[in-house]
């Protein structure tokens, strides 16, 4: 056990302090994702990449900073931005999910073309996985892609496609081998959202904003070379992406950041001349949540050590998406309870308007439920924890149901 930073890491920490002191005024407001980044955010992102505080381990050839992977460095960087409450750079589906996937299994040409603009925030991606008939059972996806004259011709429908209304590109899970068993008949394509035949219909969510969409495909032509790995390997690629999505959703830094915000608010706001933190029932809930966040923070350090040793964390990794998203919801629950009736006025018609404190908490509170469902719902996570983490037997398959592709 040694939590001291090495000389190299202390030096990095000092550099970060200096960087933040010098440039923090140029940073966009922390938070405020889920919309196309504005010019200020893009400038900030470019500055971060230049200094190696974003896309640090992405090779220089692809527009990154080109540092050797050192997970402690990444943690030091993340921590510096959390502690300072400064925008840590973009984290979207392209950066957090597609880029690592291309680095792992993309072709050289795909990496050359897409990684650079994605990490700079110039190209926004959406994830075309879920369909009306294929949510938790993602491998049941039916959107078809047929290879004809050097192009895949895509027909079908995706749903819950976050950001599709402003995304430039999509990574798509579709069925190219309809005669193969369901998991083996899928492929993973990347395509421009400007391709003719794509229609995006926004779906308003419970937050009041239209954060996700229905996406329809009618004879959409995708060049054959836009497949990632081979035909029939889409399930494998999709799972690489999902692993990164779940790690992002299970990141304990988000919890720590939430806890800071919440604690600060309870210490600042008063009701009837009394600070909220002085009200025993609110304070006690805060203390309980603090204990839980501490546990996940320590757990995050343990995962970090696993990573830097190249050890697969197994069960320790599998629990993070479920654990962290549930706790996130309870943190925002306390915030909205503390705000009470004064926090109820709520106007969010537009995605680009930043809310006041109460509205922001309510948006988070709604969105937290979305994150409990998205990326594999809690029930699905618990299946995975039970079956892959604890080696419990799978549910027996029912005979005669959903025959055909199963």
């Amino acid at each position, binding site marked *: 056990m040694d939590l001291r930073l090495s000389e190299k890491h202390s030096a990095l920490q000092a550099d970060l302090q200096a960087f933040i002191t010098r440039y923090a005024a140029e940073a966009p407001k922390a938070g405020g994702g889920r919309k196309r980044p504005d010019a200020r955010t893009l400038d900030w992102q470019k500055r971060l990449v230049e200094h190696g505080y974003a896309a640090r381990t992405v090779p220089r050839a692809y527009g990154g900073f080109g540092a050797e992977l050192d997970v402690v460095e990444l943690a030091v960087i993340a921590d510096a931005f959390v502690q300072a409450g400064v925008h840590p750079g973009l984290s979207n589906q392209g950066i957090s999910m597609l880029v690592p996937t291309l680095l792992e299994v993309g072709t050289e040409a795909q990496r050359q073309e897409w990684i650079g603009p994605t990490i700079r925030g110039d190209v926004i991606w959406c994830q075309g996985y879920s369909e009306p008939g294929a949510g938790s059972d993602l491998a049941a996806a039916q959107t078809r892609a047929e290879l004809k004259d050097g192009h895949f011709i895509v027909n079908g429908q995706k749903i819950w496609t976050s950001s599709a209304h402003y995304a430039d590109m999509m990574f798509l899970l579709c069925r190219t081998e309809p005669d193969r068993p369901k998991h083996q008949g899928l492929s993973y394509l990347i395509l421009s959202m400007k391709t003719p035949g794509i229609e995006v219909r926004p779906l308003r969510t419970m937050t009041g904003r239209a954060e996700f969409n229905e996406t329809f495909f009618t004879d959409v032509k995708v060049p054959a070379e836009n497949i990632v790995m081979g035909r029939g390997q889409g399930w494998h690629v999709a799972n690489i992406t999902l692993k990164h999505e779940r790690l992002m959703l299970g990141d304990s830094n988000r919890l720590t950041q939430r806890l800071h915000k919440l604690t600060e608010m309870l210490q600042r706001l008063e009701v009837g001349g009394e600070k909220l933190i002085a009200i025993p029932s609110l304070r006690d809930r805060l203390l309980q949540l603090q*204990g839980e966040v501490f*546990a996940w923070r320590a757990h995050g*350090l343990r995962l970090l050590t696993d990573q830097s040793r190249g050890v697969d964390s197994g069960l320790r990794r599998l629990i993070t998406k479920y*654990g962290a998203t549930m706790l996130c919801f309870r943190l925002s629950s306390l915030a909205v309870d503390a705000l009470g009736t004064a926090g109820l006025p709520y106007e969010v018609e537009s995605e680009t308007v930043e809310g006041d404190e109460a509205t922001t908490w309510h948006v988070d509170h709604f969105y937290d439920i979305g994150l409990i469902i998205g990326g594999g719902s809690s029930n699905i996570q618990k*299946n995975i*924890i*039970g079956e892959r983490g604890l080696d419990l*037997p799978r549910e*027996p398959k029912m005979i005669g149901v959903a025959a055909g592709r199963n």
Partner: protein
Amino acid sequence: MEFDLSEDQRLFGESLSGFLQDRQPLEALRRMAEPGSGFDAGLWDGLTELGLHGLLVPEQFGGAGLGVLDAAAAAEALGGTAAVVPFAASTVMATLALLRLGSPAQQAAYLPGIAAGEIRIGVGFAGRTGQTGPAEARLDGTRLSGRISGALDAGAPTHLLVCLPDGRAVLTGAAEAGVSVSSHRTIDRTRPVADLVFDGAAAEILGSSNRGPAALASVLDAGRVVLAADTVGAAQTMLDRAVAYAKERAQFGRVIGSFQGVKHACADMATMLEPCRAMVWYAAHAQDSIPAEARLWACQVKAHVGDVGREVARISTEVHGGMGFTDLLGLHYWFKRIAFNRQALGGPERCRHDAAVEQGWIVA
């Protein structure tokens, strides 16, 4: 940066677990636990050989000179096997009290005996932990009088360590005139609590100490961390047994672990419990090396692990069905171990109160 037990710490925990599983199979556990004194001479001597009692005693006094993290790794093994052995109070808290408050002469007088397994110190901290029950002790010169309930590791003590309301600590012989120890079997037959009654008993103050209150608080903190570690070990055993049972017990023509209700219950236990282990390590490491965070983490770990322990204990028992509720299966030893740890040295509510005071959210 490395967040893990060291190879030595892991190996020590494993050898301790191995030894205890070997020496304390369920039938032996029943036999050792029945008297309820929390002490078994044979087991104690074996653990002396393994070096358990001198873990925190400096090498110059015959111990291993290790820290609270090592003690936490050991406690996880003790909780995991529901070991019938005094530890959190007698081995960790008493040793730390001597190290932090004792004079050099007192250290030289007691620490070698602790390491050699000849001295076992019951600890009465009741007045500082928020435990229920009487906690009145007063000192006239060197004569101790009063009554302290809920003393830990006092089933077969050679000495007693008692804290006074003013934050000083005093030590007496358990067999001194004017000392009476009534040890009670508790719900957890592996560890008792004792009522201590003093009537002008000869006592020595630890150190001359003005360092009293803060040093004593740090001793309490270490005790809380070690009890939390014990709970993590006990809860892990309960989870492991539930998972094993779920793979083997069949109903409706399939093993129960294939039912989502059971599978998800196991997943919930794992999701709650696994981060607690890292939390205990961090809290224990803070005791050794991060003074600024030590107190807050000690309070929080005791509170949070206490809550998780209770949930895991309930769910695991439930997964076992009627078997879980029997004495025959013996699962209840771990359930009760966890229940004891939850209350001892202050339950979650009291610990969170202390955490609030520590952060200046309320005035003590």
